[in-house]
């Protein structure tokens, strides 16, 4: 089947998509957008988190055909040109990135939290990131990064 939908503001197309393919597969393998990571393929790890029509979802659990005509925003769409989004800068500054595989999903999940809640409590941060697994950092630096991003976003 042939698909077209918007990714980070650009109209994208894919041909010969198999009916059982996930949105994640189409993004990575057919559209050259490898930012969203493929790890568990069952919604457990959150590394493939993207926005679908403004809602944070695991792109491995969206059938590609379900994205037809819709709006997708991936981790590649968080920065503005060369300017990192405050959430991305905070992850760098706080040392919240080690191997980096979980980072794209965590960035989108943290971004989603902070646009809904500018001053999250620690339990709220933990709840918002509960669907994103990191096996390197022990999460403490990630929590630091989200707090730092929240502070900076409130200050600006």
């Amino acid at each position, binding site marked *: 089947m042939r698909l077209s939908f918007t990714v980070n503001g650009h109209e994208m197309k894919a041909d010969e998509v198999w009916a059982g393919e*996930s949105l994640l597969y189409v993004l990575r393998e057919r559209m050259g957008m490898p930012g969203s990571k493929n790890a568990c*393929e069952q*919604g457990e790890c959150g590394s493939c988190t993207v926005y679908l029509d403004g*809602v*944070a979802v695991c792109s491995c*659990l*969206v059938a590609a*055909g379900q994205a037809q005509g819709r709006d997708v925003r991936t981790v590649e769409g968080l920065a503005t040109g060369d300017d990192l989004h405050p959430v991305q800068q905070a992850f760098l500054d706080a040392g919240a990135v080690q191997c980096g595989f979980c980072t794209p999903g965590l960035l989108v999940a943290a971004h989603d939290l902070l646009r809904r809640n500018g001053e999250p409590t620690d339990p709220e941060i933990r*709840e918002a990131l509960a669907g994103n697994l990191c096996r390197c950092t022990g999460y403490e630096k990630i929590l630091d990064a989200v707090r730092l991003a929240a502070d900076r976003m409130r200050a600006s």
Partner: protein
Amino acid sequence: MEFLQPTTWRQALEAKSANPKAVPIQGGTDVMVELNFDRHRPPALLDLSQIEELGRWEQTDGTVRIGAAVSYTRTITELGDRLPGLAMAARTVGSPQIRNRGTVAGNLGAASPAGDSHPALLATDAVVEVESVRGVRQVPVASFYAGVKRSVLEPDELIRATLVPVATGPQQYCKIGTRNAMVIAVAAFGLALHPDRRRVGTGIGSAAPTPRRARDAEAYVGEALDAGGYWDTREPIPDTVATRFGDLVAAASSPIDDVRGSARYRQHALSVMARRALLWAWNEFREG
């Protein structure tokens, strides 16, 4: 594999009738896992996500009719005030990303004994609205489950909505798992006080081949509260009654030993959850 994408409910029913082996997909949180791991290769996917009306809910008199595409997140934010037990269950589902996509109707369609919605639906006497080109059926949720991951849905039927009575009293939901998020229940329990009918509703999850009510426990506590005049006096429930209630809930289950827990642990957990849920709900009723 075909990808069927109706834009109206009528088209969806016709597509299901013409392709009874097509697997309906909405949030995809169960269906896509099966496909990604090549566990299941159906001849067609029937995508319901383009049908706008499925994403609506409406309240008529004392019942909320929840369209099949209403997500858990929306169940929590939009219906938590009138359906507290179902909202509590929804909060225990997966993670934010999963709750943004998964639906109560999808939970019913999958009919897993561990589905998080079921105990809350059982405790509140919910009804499943199913439809085919042949017509509409309203199936009480207690009669909906037919076995492990099986329901009474006919091959040409689709779930249109879930009908849940607006709470008339406090409701509770408890779930045991190894962590707080992304976890399949080891055992779960839903409870609803129905002061209008002087009844207590129950639902057991993850502790039998299907979700089920604890009917003897409901009858026992109903009689005990009635006989003691508790619905009128709102006096504290004696511990002996709450403990007996918990034991009867555990006795209503028929769990297995598996990787998530032993049968014995599940029954113990159920007796504790049921006792606590009853006391929590009753205390709220007393204060209300």
